[in-house]
């Protein structure tokens, strides 16, 4: 078990290391460098030289990579070209905000998705299933900017119940984001719930058709006892991995929603720094997102293994 954990951890570390190399070489291969990208037409003479000296761009690429990678490991992500601020600090704030959004969305979305997924599966093809399954398809297919805009129009412009835009600054505390964060959370949760709902529904339907559920029925086990003791523990195992992927998506992939609501999250920072040509920040965010993906998936695999006796013995034996 321990050796398996160590192996998975080191594999995860290797993955992140490879990603960091790819990011770094990708940036290296761009024509010009961080300074020419940032300074644009002014990239000449003294200004360029100073910039390069400030960012330490005159040393060989391998040296710079090793420097960057080793300081990134202890949390120092360098300084941005733009404001000459510590990237760790800049990104840290945004990360907190993204985590807040993700946390709220998960808190609402996951229980709701599992509940509705189970309900729609148990009442398969009944009206309740048709209503929620259709709603889920709508939630998945309507573009986020459309649903965001409609929600702002209804709840903010017409009813005036909720603020339609986030005006709180990026470094504010979590409490200060309420109630501004409510609408973005609803939009994010809608998409997420729909995905998880459909997955849970399929999984429950599969398990309901299994031999062991039929056996439990023929053993005289009452219906709800079958659902809670024989169906759900087996059907919800795959949900762990889907939720993990959703978390990673919530942190980096909800740019559109962040832009519509002016929410200061990580995704928007990435887009902003790309348009500002602030390459050190882009590198840092890419690296952080890769780490998030790897660690979230690793956690999900470990959780699945703890919850699934089959996987557990498989790894115990090794």
């Amino acid at each position, binding site marked *: 078990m321990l050796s398996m954990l160590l192996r998975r951890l080191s594999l995860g570390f290797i993955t992140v290391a490879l990603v960091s190399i790819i990011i770094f070489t990708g940036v290296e291969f761009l024509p010009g460098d961080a300074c020419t990208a940032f300074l644009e037409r002014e990239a000449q003479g003294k200004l360029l030289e100073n910039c390069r000296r400030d960012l330490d761009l005159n040393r060989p690429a391998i040296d710079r990579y090793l420097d960057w990678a080793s300081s990134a490991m202890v949390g120092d992500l360098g300084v941005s070209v733009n404001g000459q601020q510590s990237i760790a600090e800049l990104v840290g704030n945004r990360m907190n905000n993204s985590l807040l959004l993700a946390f709220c969305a998960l808190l609402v979305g996951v229980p709701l998705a599992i509940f509705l997924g189970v309900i729609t599966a148990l009442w398969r093809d009944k009206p309740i299933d048709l209503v929620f399954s259709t709603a889920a398809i709508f939630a998945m297919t309507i573009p986020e900017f459309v649903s965001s805009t409609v929600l702002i129009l209804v709840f903010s412009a017409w009813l005036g119940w909720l603020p339609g835009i986030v005006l709180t600054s990026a470094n504010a505390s979590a409490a200060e984001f309420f109630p501004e964060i409510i609408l973005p959370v609803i939009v994010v949760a809608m998409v997420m719930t729909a995905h998880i709902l459909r997955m849970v529904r399929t999984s429950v339907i599969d398990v309901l058709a299994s031999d*062991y559920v*039929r056996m439990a*029925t023929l*053993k*005289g086990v009452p219906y709800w006892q079958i659902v809670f003791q024989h169906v759900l523990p*087996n059907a919800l195992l795959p949900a762990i991995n889907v939720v993990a992927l959703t978390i990673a998506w919530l942190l980096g992939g909800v740019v559109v929603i962040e832009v519509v609501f002016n929410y200061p999250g990580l995704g928007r920072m990435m887009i902003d720094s790309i348009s500002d040509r602030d390459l050190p920040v882009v590198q840092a965010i890419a690296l952080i997102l890769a780490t998030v993906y790897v660690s979230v998936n690793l956690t999900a695999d470990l959780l699945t293994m703890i919850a699934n*006796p*089959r996987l557990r*013995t498989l790894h115990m034996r090794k």
Partner: protein
Amino acid sequence: MNLDNRPLIEICDLSIGFSNEEKQVLPILRNIDLTVRAGETVGLVGESGSGKSTLALAMMGYLGNPLKVLNGSTSFRQQSTFDLSVRELEQIRGGQLALIPQNAGQALTPTQRIGRQISEALKLHSKFTETQRPERVIELLTQVRLPDPATLVDRYPHELSGGQQQRVAVAMALAGEPDALLLDEPTTGLDVTTQAHVLELLRDLAQETGTAMVYVSHDLGAIARVCERVVVMYAGEIVLDGSVRQVLLKPVHPYARSLLASIPKLREASLPAALDGRPPAPGDVGNGCAFAARCAMVEDRCTHERPSLQVTKSGERVRCHLFEKVEQLAAPGPGTAVERSSLKQAPEVLALDNIAISYTSRGLLDQILGRQPNNTPTVDDISLVIRKGETIGLVGESGSGKSTILKAIAGLIPARHGNITYNGNELLKASIDQRDKNQLRRIQLIFQNPDDSLNPRQTVAEILAQPLRLYFGLSNQELHDRSVEILERVRLGGHYLERLPSQLSGGEKQRVAVARAFIAEPELVLCDEVTSALDVSVQAAVLGLLNRLQREFGTTYIFVSHDLAVVRALADRVALLYQGRLCEIGPVADVYSLPSHPYTEVLLGAVLEPHPDSVPVLSADDIVELSPMPIGCPFQRRCPRRLGEICDTQTPPWQQVSSEHLIRCHIQHSDLQKIQTQQVS
């Protein structure tokens, strides 16, 4: 046995069916009348699609989607099952009426420990209190003869072997102290030895507890061992119902006669008689007898007048217009003997020299460092010479490496070491992608399950065209002609070309798979359990086909099977494998006549013949071994004739019994023969 003579289960004129897309009602079961009394053991036998499982589940008031009751009723203890409330059904199911499912591995909930699953049944259906239950669980596990029940309760289903899982399912069914047990193919998928042990357990239970049993199976041998009475089903009807002795020795229905004739027998070196055609699909029966289309004795009225269930003088119920005529017939004789010419002089086709195969793949690190895996290989020390035109049977329990050896010969799993020589001088490369086209063509493989080995999106024409294009570069008319020719050879005909596998029956699919192998004009055909997914009557036809093709083309077969009787019918020589090691090899007649190797003795002893007096000899435990022993005799842990330390530490030498017959054992062959002769007398 039991004085209470009121029927326990009573089924009256029951018909069950479903509606198809055109709103036609298609019956699965038709007018079933059946009573089971307390303590009675009844076998329900029939081929797939005969409705036997549906009938058993209907006794519990269970109908799978989309089935519905069309007519009639079933009752348990005078309560009409389909009229009971859900609550009342839950009381009966698993309580007075318990099910032992097919494939217990899938019928046990994977995320629950064994103890908890049995405890659940106790909680629902017994008076044991919370504190008494753990002890009762252990009692039940002991009753089904599971080793070390105290640790077993904390195991998960996947941590047990197939035989152990089946025993857990039996224990779970016994938890409610049922009046009747329904057994739905409880031993299908188990090894012969495990099956024999589970059947003995069930038989003892029936005798000890007086529980009635309804035993659903396609295997007449298993039914003969456990049941007193047998009900034969065909196309959703009961066609014959009588005592096991009567039905097996003097069947008065033509279908039962043909069914018995199609079963290969261990003591007969002949091919069983095939039953042509296939059962009618639901709704296709017409007005006459359902069996008329395949019946050898068919008369005019059979095709338009449905026979009723009549009672014979000896008290059997039979659904046949001509049962009195059938009664007069002599018992079915042995099948057609296979002509065997002496093959000792035939040239060698394939030689395996000290082959070892390992499934464990080397990790990335091992590959970088060039390390070899140091574990004991799955298959080891296999040396065999196969001569042109012969059939060699590879026999063993599951996990004995029989299919693995075939895959190594085909190059699908490269052998770890050892040589495969073709035609005496041509060294075959270990991996399939290093072999040339001609080498590939000469060795063809037929798989166990045609449902998996035929691409469901390809028509028969496309399936057959592939080898023709690949090996012979044929196209258009020539390709078409060859395809039609081979289809006629396998008795299908050119009109099958445009069909998809889903439009074929199981036997027809396997014929297509055989045609695909033979269209390449192979010299060696590897048959991997080719009949084990088929019904017995279909199996007989496929065995006949393989035998005929061999005579026509002079093909050599390596025939892998777990069924010793099938190998007896088809093979010239047989090699017995245990845990990937050869134990005995020799001509079929020598090996089967007086088993000499202890493993052969165990395997042959466990075989159940469809005969009322067939008694298995259980001489070894059915422990399941996970990995082969690194040193000593591979069979040391289960051997009933174990000598002592020498078996654990030294690999036994090959003993030459005759020029063709070799066994690998520390005991002298003559001594083994002596033990056997003493046992027989």
